[in-house]
Structure formats: structure tokens, C-alpha cells
């Protein structure tokens, strides 16, 4: 039974593509395309100006090249910056009007959009290529004053909130990929939790790249007002294609006084085939701002997909007593490469941060943890604890740790530890003695290695992630 299950999962099961007619913007990156995107979304003028400003800035920016995994140069003129299912030209009003093929796609991915059929009570916003196709449980949420919709809708219905917060954490003048996103972002989720509200269910976005030659540039903005709480999940998949596809998203989190945001990601983009052909370039900018006092932002990520993962979800701890957390599992197999980690920037007094990172590399892959802990002179009595462990399987892969530690405050403490090792023969022997086959044994040990992080995930996700950890390492033992 179990063997069959594993057999079924061995290949990338989300690799199918949906044969759906799509409507695209002309290829290339220029002012006209930006105007086209803005026009089709019926955006107000300030947003178009904002995009164009970002585009101006982009012209002078250079693509960064300090990262460990190198990739062939991307031709930004050879990409589609907007792609939407054709039936979306006039947005359907309800799920009944949705293209059945789309529904089927999400069914296949295991994300039923029909609310009645759902048992686990997670509100989902599904993003297909460049547009958001459906958002569920809207009514339940609206009752509490929670806004959960696509960012395009938010621009129309809540322009004051978007205008106030968009670009405050990741400014227009940031690095290349963030600025590119600011210029051409298409859709994404928008969440606003009003003061004192504890969001009754998990909010979730599911990203899917379908069309070929497209870059996905989504933008997520989450605002937790005073004293509120929200837990947000993000999942991603893409079809198997031979060429590399770019995914450059921006995620901005803002936590005001006493608010808490928990952001979890299970990233399972198509990683490319066994020889490293194809796969997604996952170059994402994620940044959270603990703006108010006693606020908390916690990032949890399980990174198993993508040909190249290059991201550093960070926390800017501006408010006094604010807390930042980062829990990460990154697994690379075959020819996958990852350069990931976090930044904890302590600005306020009594701020605390915690980093737990677990990296596992197998096959011919290469994994780098890169992190920054910066305690500014004013951040008195701040604390950081960092632990990053790496596990290597085979001598064709690499694991690297590059932490940057800056302490400018004598009342603050930073502790950092890192280890690199392999699975011990003794542990393997013990598990096999109890009747597990070598692959099961490795799966069990790896799951134990990752436990600290898996525990942080919401229930449904944890189960999925645990399975994913096992699958990602298939074929790496022996």
C-alpha cells in the first residue's frame, strides 16, 4: 500500500497543464505593457503612475549577481507579463459562472473551490497565472469586517487602504526583482484584519502558473490592525515545462500594535526534471514590518520545489517589544539550487527574533543559508537566537552557511549556531532493524530533523508538508 502511494507520488504530480485558452498582453517589457496591465485592471491613475515610477527606476537598476546559484541570463523582453484565462475578460460574478476547466484544475490540485464541499474551513484565494480566479468564504469573513480578496479588487473597493500601505515595506526603490514586480504586478491577495479581530479561519492563497513563457508577478499585502491576529497560508505549483519560468512575487506584511501575523508557505513549484532541465526560478521578496508595539510576525516556509529558490523572508522589528520568527525547511534534490534565509533587523527596544533553519541537500543540488541579524544602536535589550542545521546526502551536493551578524548594541545578545552533518549510520541501522526499508528510514529521520519547523505549520499543511519532505528525497538514497 505504502509502496504504491510512494510510486504514485514519485513524479511531480502537479505537472499537468490545463488546456485553457489564455488572453495575454503583448510580449516584452515596456511602458505600453504596463499601461495595458493597468488598463485591463481598470486601475486608478495613481497606481499607474506608481507602476511607471517603478519602471523608470528599473531602468537604472542592475540585476544582482552575488547569489550562489547562477542562472543563464533572463531575457525580460521575451516574456509575457500578463496572462489570464480567456473567460476572464469579464470577471465572472460567482463560482457558477467559472470555467469548468478551471474548477477541474483546482480539483486536481486538491483545492476544491466549492465551499459546500469543504470541511476544513480554510478560505482560499486561487491565483491562476496573472489573475485571481476565486475567493471563498467571503461572506463569513465580511461579517467580522475582514477584507480578503484579490489585490485588484482591493484597489477598486478599498483604494484608501491599498494606497496607504502599498510599497511601505518594499519601497519602489528596492532591488531589481522587487522593483520589476512593482512595475508589472498582476494579481495577488489582499488581507485586512480590523482592530481587535482574531481571524476565525486560516486564509490561504493558491498560486498556479499555467501558461508558458509567462512570468508570474503577484503581490500580496497583509495588514493586521491593532490587536488582531491572522494566519495565512500560501501554496504553489506549476506544470512541467522544458523552459525555465520566472516567478518574482512581492509579499508585504504590516503588523500594528499588539497584532500578530503568521505566514506559512509550502512551495512546490515544478523543480525541473532529473537532469535539471526546466523548472521555476523562484525569486521572491518577502518582508514584514512589525510597525507597532508588541507586534509579532512569524514566517514558516517549506521549500521543496523550484529549480532555483532565492528568497529571504525578513522582519523589520521597528516597534518596541516586537518579535520576529523564521522557521524554514529547504530541500534540494537532483539539480535544484537554493539560496535562502532571512533578515532580522532590530530597530526597536526589547525586540526578539528567532531563526530555525533546516537545509537538506541531495543529488547534485546546492543549498545555501544566508541570513542577516542586525541590531542597531538604539535596539537596547534585544535578543536573537539562530540555529541552522544542514544535512548532506552524497558527495555531489553542497551545503553552505553564510550568516551576517552585526551587533551595535552592548545590551543585546546574539547567539548563532550551525552544524553540517550526514545521517548517521547508527540511526539508519536502528530504523532498518525495526523493519523499515532504507528510504522509509531516511524519511523518518529527515522528518525528525525537520520536526521543529513542521510543528509550526497549521494542521492540514503540516500533513502535506510531511509527505512532501518524503517525496522530495525519493531516489536520493542508495
Amino acid at each position: 500500500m505504502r509502496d504504491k502511494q510512494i510510486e504514485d507520488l514519485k513524479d511531480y504530480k502537479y505537472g499537468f497543464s490545463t488546456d485553457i485558452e489564455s488572453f495575454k498582453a503583448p510580449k516584452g517589457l515596456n511602458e505600453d505593457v504596463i499601461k495595458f496591465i493597468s488598463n485591463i485592471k481598470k486601475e486608478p491613475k495613481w497606481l499607474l503612475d506608481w507602476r511607471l515610477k517603478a519602471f523608470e527606476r528599473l531602468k537604472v537598476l542592475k540585476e544582482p549577481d552575488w547569489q550562489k546559484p547562477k542562472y543563464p541570463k533572463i531575457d525580460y523582453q521575451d516574456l509575457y507579463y500578463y496572462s489570464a484565462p480567456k473567460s476572464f475578460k469579464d470577471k465572472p460574478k460567482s463560482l457558477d459562472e467559472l470555467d469548468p476547466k478551471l474548477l477541474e484544475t483546482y480539483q486536481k490540485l486538491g483545492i476544491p473551490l466549492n465551499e459546500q464541499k469543504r470541511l476544513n474551513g480554510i478560505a482560499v484565494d486561487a491565483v491562476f497565472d496573472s489573475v485571481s480566479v476565486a475567493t471563498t468564504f467571503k461572506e463569513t469573513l465580511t461579517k467580522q469586517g475582514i477584507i480578503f480578496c484579490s489585490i485588484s479588487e482591493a484597489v477598486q473597493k478599498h483604494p484608501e487602504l491599498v494606497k496607504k500601505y502599498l510599497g511601505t515595506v518594499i519601497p519602489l526603490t528596492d532591488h531589481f526583482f522587487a522593483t520589476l514586480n512593482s512595475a508589472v504586478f498582476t494579481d495577488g491577495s489582499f488581507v485586512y484584519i480590523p482592530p481587535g479581530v482574531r481571524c476565525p479561519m486560516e486564509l490561504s492563497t493558491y498560486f498556479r502558473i499555467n501558461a508558458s513563457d509567462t512570468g508570474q508577478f503577484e503581490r500580496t499585502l497583509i495588514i493586521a490592525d491593532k490587536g488582531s491576529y491572522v494566519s495565512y497560508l500560501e501554496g504553489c505549483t506549476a506544470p512541467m515545462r522544458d523552459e525555465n519560468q520566472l516567478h518574482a512575487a512581492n509579499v508585504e506584511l504590516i503588523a500594528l500594535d499588539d497584532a500578530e501575523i503568521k505566514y506559512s508557505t509550502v512551495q512546490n513549484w515544478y523543480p525541473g526534471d532529473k537532469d535539471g532541465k526546466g523548472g521555476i526560478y523562484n525569486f521572491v521578496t518577502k518582508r514584514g514590518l512589525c510597525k507597532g508595539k508588541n507586534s509579532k510576525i512569524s514566517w514558516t516556509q517549506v521549500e521543496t520545489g523550484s529549480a532555483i529558490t532565492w528568497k529571504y523572508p525578513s522582519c523589520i522589528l521597528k516597534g518596541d517589544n516586537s518579535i520576529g520568527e523564521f522557521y524554514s525547511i529547504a530541500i534540494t534534490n537532483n539539480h535544484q539550487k537554493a539560496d535562502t534565509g532571512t533578515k532580522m533587523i532590530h530597530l526597536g527596544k526589547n525586540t526578539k527574533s528567532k531563526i530555525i533553519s533546516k537545509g537538506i541537500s541531495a543529488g547534485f543540488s546546492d543549498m545555501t543559508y544566508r541570513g542577516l541579524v542586525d541590531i542597531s544602536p538604539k535596539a537596547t535589550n534585544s535578543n536573537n537566537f539562530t540555529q541552522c542545521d544542514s544535512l548532506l546526502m552524497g558527495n555531489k551536493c553542497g551545503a553552505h552557511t553564510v550568516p551576517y551578524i552585526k551587533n551595535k548594541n552592548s545590551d543585546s545578545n546574539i547567539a548563532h549556531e550551525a552544524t553540517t552533518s550526514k545521517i548517521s549510520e547508527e540511526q539508519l541501522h536502528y530504523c532498518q532493524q525495526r523493519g523499515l526499508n532504507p528510504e522509509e528510514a531516511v524519511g523518518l529521520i529527515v522528518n525528525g530533523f525537520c520536526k521543529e519547523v513542521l510543528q509550526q505549520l497549521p494542521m492540514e499543511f503540516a500533513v502535506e508538508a510531511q509527505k512532501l519532505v518524503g517525496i522530495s528525497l525519493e531516489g536520493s538514497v542508495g
Partner: protein
Amino acid sequence: MEEQLKIDFEKKLKDFSYSDQEKKFKETNFKEFLKQGFPNRKLESWKFSDLNQIIKSNIGELTFYNDYKKENQIDKIQLISDLEHNKLIVIDGKIEKIDFKFEEKDKIEVLVEQGEETIKENINSLINLNNAFSNKFCKIIIKKNYSLKKPLVIYHSTNKNTQSKNTNSRIDFKLEENACLRLIDIFKDNTEKNFLNIYYNFELDKSSILKNYKIDKSINNNVKYSYNNVKQEANSISETFILSSGSKFFKNEINCNLQGQHSSAFVNGIFDLDDENHHEIKSNINHLVENTKSYQLVKSVLEKKSKAVYQGKIFVSSEAQKTDGYQLSNAILLSENSEFNAKPELEIYADDVKCSHGSSSGSLDENSIFYLMSRGLNYKEAKKLLINGFLLDVIEKITDEEIKNLIKNLLGVKE
């Protein structure tokens, strides 16, 4: 500065009659330096210490020409009195005296050469600067199976009227099979606004042992850079200890290639900084074959506006299975203006390894102070006792008893 460089380089070329090959070597290096200039923060390894900026704000305009024909006074230098030792005295980048009076003459060979390219790849522009402007460099060979009876002390100093000058020196060592050398580098310059650029090359043959102690204790206003390149064959051991304290700015860089099985490298350091001093240790331990070992321990005590940087890297190639690499850095920040930056880096391509690093920084433990004060010590004494204990950890790693005591006395640390 470019003008000054060109004038000084022309002057230098006229001074000696160089062979065509030597001339070409110096010119290539000079051009490379002209192209790159002093390293700045845009370079990853100089991120925390922008030398270009440091030279600008501390020195201003530099001159690069040194008259190597001039005799320098060596009797002004205060020698270590409580330790019998061999001497090598470097003043303004010129080797003034080599004295191996305690050793058997035929066991040590001293070659004075004009300079040859021993390292092909470009390390950084400062090595180019060194190659272009250094005088004849000296190569010391310790013969097979010989271990020096007394340590060799290298005194680095400047003339008392030397100012705003860049001096370059290079010394190479070769330890033949089973040879042993104890080396103390001591800085005796009390001038200001000079930039000392020092470059060492060590070749350690099978089973040889190198113990290198670098002591920068006397207070001065100079900017210094030292690069140690160590190549280790099978079963060799290198031990490097750095006491980084007196200079305005000092960056010590250790590059160690473990290319023989069962070779091991130890790098230990102490930052004891005050005022606005800014020091850095950067280590690069390359494990290239199986069964090699490295150990690094760096501790810092930072007063006032001082700043310490530790960048330690352990590299393990895919052949280097069974590597054991360890690295630890601790820092105590005593003033609200002091700063500690660290970048402990692991780059690992082999799976059967044991590598770990740790780094911590923070203030003195108030509980320990309270405990000591409750036993009748005053605050100052309690603080001193705690710091002593903290630093003693590193000093105890020194394997040579004589030198350990010397350093303990220098730091005023008692057991």
C-alpha cells in the same frame, strides 16, 4: 593618488637594475593595483572594513616610495628581554637584520630573491601593491628534521619620522620534512598615519610544525594589513594565534590550504580593543583532501567606540571526506558604542563531515558580576576578573609554554 603612485613606481624601477622578467612581474602587478585601487566595501570580503575609506579618513595622501639603500637605525627598537630568541628586524618594509645566533648554521638557509610569482590567482589588490613595491624578499628554509632551539621573533617597525607612507614587506618560509618553527611577529611601531602591508608565504612539508604568534599590542596610529598564505602537506600542523590590539586598524587574513591527509590548522585570536580602533580577522580554511582538521576560536573584548570583525570560512571540497571543522567566536561589548560583526561561513561539498560554527555577542553577565561583588570585590575588579577568565580560554590554546607566559604577561592576565 594615481599620480603619486606612478611617480613613485618610476622612481622605484630606476633604483634597482631589475631583470626583464622581474620588471614585467612588477609592472603587471602595478597595473592591476592601479586598476583596482584599495579594496572598498563593495567587495564581499571587505564589506565590514572599507580600507579605501579608512585610509582616506586616517591617512589622507600616501606616498609609496621607500629608499631601501638607506640604513635604518635598529638599536632604537625595544627588544623582548625575557625570552632568548633569534631575530629578524624589518624597518619600513626593509629587512635590516637576520640573526640566527642560537641555531646550527647549516640547518637554515636564507635566500634573498627579487620576487617571483608564487600565487597565480589574484587574491586582492593589496597583494599586487606588495608585489609591485616590496624590496627584495627573503625566503627562509628550515632543513629536514631540524627544529629551531629558540623561537624566531620578527620585529616590524617604522622609523620615527616616517609618516603618510606605505611600506611593503614579504617573507617566505619553507619548512622541510619534519622541521619545526616557532615564530613570533611583533609590532613595535609607534608612529602614525602609515600603512603597513605585510605578506607571508608558508610552505609546510610533511610532518612539519609551524607555530605563529602575531602580537599587535603597542599603541600606534597606523593602518595595517597582513596576509598569511599557508600550504600544508600530510601530517603537518599549523598554529596561528593573533593578539589584535594596539593599531588603529589591522586586518589579519589567514588563508590555509590543507592539501595533505591528516594535516591540521588551528587559528585562535583575541581582539582587545579600545578607543576608535577597528580590527578584523578573516580566515579561510580550505579542506582539500580527506581526514583534515581545523579549529578556530576568536574572542573579543570591545571598549568605547571600537569595532571588531571576524569573518571565518570553512571550505570543504567534495574529496575532503571525514573533515572535522570547528569555529567559535564570542564577543563582549563593554560600551554602547562598540560594535561586533561576524560572518562565520561554511561552504561544504562532502557529506561525511563534522562541521559546526557558533557565534555569540553581548554584554557582561550581570549575575556573575553580582556574585563576585557579593564576595567583596569592587565592580572594576569583578569586571577585570571576568574578562580575564574569558580571554584565558584562548590563551590556554597556545601550545608553547614559554610564549604563553609571554603573552599572559603582555595582557596582564593571571591564572
